[in-house]
């Protein structure tokens, strides 16, 4: 049980950390985050 709770805690920490990082990165502007996993030309975001 404690192992499962540890997994839940770690998952929540990663989620909070990642979303916090995203907030920090986007704090100074609102340009769209465009990623390209394939190298294809990126169209205008929605």
């Amino acid at each position, binding site marked *: 049980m404690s192992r499962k709770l540890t997994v839940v805690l770690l998952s929540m920490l*990663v989620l909070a950390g*990642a979303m916090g990082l995203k907030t920090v990165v986007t704090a100074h502007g609102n340009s769209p985050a465009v990623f390209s996993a394939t190298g294809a030309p*990126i169209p205008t975001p929605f």
Partner: protein
Amino acid sequence: MLGPADWVIWSLATLFEAAVVVCSVRKKVFRRYFFLNLYMLFSVLVSVGQFRVLMHYGRSSLEYRYFYYYSEALLVISLYFALISLYSVVFQELRVERYVRFGAVLLLAGTAWFSYAVVNQSSARMLTHFVYELSQNLYFIGLVLTYALWGVILKLRETRALLVQLVLSLGVYFSAYAASYAISNLRPDLLPHIAYLFPIIGCLLPLAWAYAIWRVPGEARIEPARLAVASR
């Protein structure tokens, strides 16, 4: 209209993605890094699909935009599972795969819920916005997970050279994206120039993986620093 540079970068990226799978088969590590290869196979298929849609409808068409962002979201999810499979390889000897799978599903569900909460406000094209938001958020989750995995590798003194190379390449890939994204937010006037960087970064990950798989034998071990000092 696409310029010659766009075509070259795209072609090279697809070539490198195929090269990862070919190198894995040749070096007999395909099954060990199955999800990484699956991600690369999906990338090749998506590239072909994107090419066909682009040729048929054009870059500014709604069809290309939909196809691009939906297929990218699927690719990001498969990249997420590829990253989780690296966790499974690292934790193999501790026999905690069950907990890794549980954590991975929980984290994916949490990210989906968070993305839904963000786009819940907009009623128009909510599914499209959700897919776009989810893929963005998963990139940042991937970044944090890669750094956490690197910490685990250091803590457990993991010495499998290929595994270390794969994780480091992934770390550089995610970090480069995050840095480019941060710069484009700090200096929006640079966005048109930085936009060229994204496909190049996407091209470098399969190149690094293909090179690592080709050059580093599957059973090769890195000599730990402490052993290196003791042997002097």
